[in-house]
């Protein structure tokens, strides 16, 4: 098993992220994905800066999840390139991208149901040369599941499963964390917990790219919002500007309001 280089990659930029100069950690160049006749992602040029929490919004079918899957390598692009931390990702195998410092929490909870909470966290940790017990204790504490460490993951509530999966992804200490609708189907309290968790990880220097529908949640965590529509970037900017944008209101926010 190779040691994830992501760990080393991550240690240095954590300092830089707190400074004022921000570099792009992720950028796409003319990224396109076609499924037969359907163009799900249409020559997207998109960047995520180091140390930010970027939200990606847009109506259903806008290509948000497809974009995430192109970044993780679950899908290969029809055209265009992806760069992460100065390296080209486009032809890299998915597991190598994780080694390079990307992590993802899927939309529906993907956890190991028959294993205990602690074992779930050990699976990603056993590959690393980090101090497993220390990271384990800290992560359990952080996702507020320390008391349920020995329970089978299948017994957890939906919100707890979501937190556990974030915890699994976070143990690898990724430079870029992708979250696909992290608060879908959650109560108000659970949503607040997740927002708190994301902010605290962000304070430690983690960069986030979050796909989300819940605008209130977006407002809580985000600085910058990108709006996708029909596979293309419609607009991007600070959340206030986005919420007041006529076109965004018409095609996206208007539908929900």
């Amino acid at each position, binding site marked *: 098993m190779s040691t994830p280089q992501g760990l080393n990659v991550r240690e240095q930029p954590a300092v830089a992220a707190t400074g004022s100069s921000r570099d792009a950690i992720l950028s796409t160049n003319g990224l396109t994905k076609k499924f037969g006749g359907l163009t799900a992602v249409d020559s997207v040029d998109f960047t995520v800066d180091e140390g930010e929490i970027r939200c990606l919004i847009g109506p259903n079918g806008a290509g948000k999840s497809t974009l995430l899957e192109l970044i993780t390598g679950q899908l290969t692009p029809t055209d265009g390139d992806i760069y992460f931390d100065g390296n080209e990702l486009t032809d890299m*195998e998915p597991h190598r991208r994780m080694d390079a410092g990307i992590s993802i929490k899927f939309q529906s909870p993907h956890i*190991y149901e028959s*294993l205990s909470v602690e074992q779930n966290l050990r699976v990603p940790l056993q590959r690393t040369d980090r101090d497993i017990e220390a990271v384990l204790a800290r992560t359990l504490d952080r996702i507020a599941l320390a008391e349920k460490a020995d329970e089978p993951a299948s017994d957890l509530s939906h919100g707890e499963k979501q937190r556990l*999966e974030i915890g*699994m992804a976070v143990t690898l200490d990724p430079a870029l964390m992708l979250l696909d609708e992290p608060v879908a189907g959650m109560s108000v309290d659970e949503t607040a917990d997740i927002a708190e968790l994301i902010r605290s990880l962000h304070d430690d220097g983690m960069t986030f790219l979050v796909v989300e529908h819940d605008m209130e949640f977006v407002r809580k965590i985000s600085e910058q919002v990108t709006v996708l529509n029909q596979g293309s970037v419609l607009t991007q900017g600070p959340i206030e500007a986005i919420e007041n944008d006529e076109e965004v209101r018409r095609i996206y926010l208007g539908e929900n309001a």
Partner: protein
Amino acid sequence: MTDGRLPSRLDGIARKLNGPNTLGNSKAFWLAFAVGMVGMIAYPLVRGSYAAGQTSLFLVYGLLALSLSLIWGYTGILSFGQVAFFGIAGYTYAIVSLNLGGAFGQTVALPVAVGVATLAAFVLGYFMFYGGVKNVYVAILTLVVTLVLETFMAQTAGSEWAIGSVQLGGFNGIPGIRNFALGVEGASFSLSGSGFYWFVLTLLLVAYLGSRILVNSRFGYTLVAIREDAERTTMLGYNVKRVKLAVFTLSGALAGLSGVLYATWGNYMDPSVFTIVFATIPIVWVTLGGRESLLGGIVGTIIIERLRLWFSVNASEFAIVFVGVILMTTVLLVPRGILPGIRDGYVFFSEHGIRKGIERGRGTIQTRIQARLESVGVGGSETETPPSSEAVRE
């Protein structure tokens, strides 16, 4: 988890053998295991060499079951291909040992045959896993490969189908494989009856304990993680394809070893090992015994094969039907298999006490049977679902 009374070296070994990925880790389990092993070792002394020779076939099959437990029970890849590697190794062993002749030939043929089976598993696994074949398609593909081998080997009756001095023999297969022997000419020993039994028992024990260490290691965690959610495991940085290929190759090697022993046990090799019946039987063994348990597959094998032997003596062609009935009954009562069932029962009774446990257990079994019967539309349902059935009648 360890009881602290063992000397440190033994303790280290015990820690490697035990873990959350195997069912039996308690002192009670190991005690029962030791008693069982003593019984197995003593068996030829009690029942004689002939009976031991017959029984050694079940142990040979036990290795095949173990290979399926690893790939299916632990990694979640249902393979009908274990018998293909079993058969490939058996044929290879026959061809190499008969061509070389003598004890030395047999000694050489063993690693060659296992090597060829391992290579076959590696090549098939490489194209499957790196070609993106997943889930049920692995089962289909491995079954097809097995059946193609049957068709191919069955048509090798002509004299042009010979490798060296050995005729492949079509349906009749290759006869005259000698009992297993180790060594070189003049300094060799041949294994049959009790000797062969103990030899196979030793191999099975080593393979079992080795597999326990494997599944309780980090690698074992990775296997279970892949079984539970392959996509999540990839996205935690694991090279899932490579791990699948590794375990598929390893289980192919185990199946190959089993096939070599089978060839020397029966002194012949024919295409019946590639038939759909034989391809399915290992799945029956492992399902019955419990696929999440390494020992389960072995126990299931011994039970089924013992019964099959008994039925085929007493009820000839209905043997396979009876096996089917036993399988269905077991799956109905203990869906996870016999050994996990015993473990669950043990935990259950130690929590609730015997008397209360029996009452509860009876209730559980009753509801389970009732649920199954209702799901196929037999009994009980009339009283409980009146609205829908009436609506249909109207």
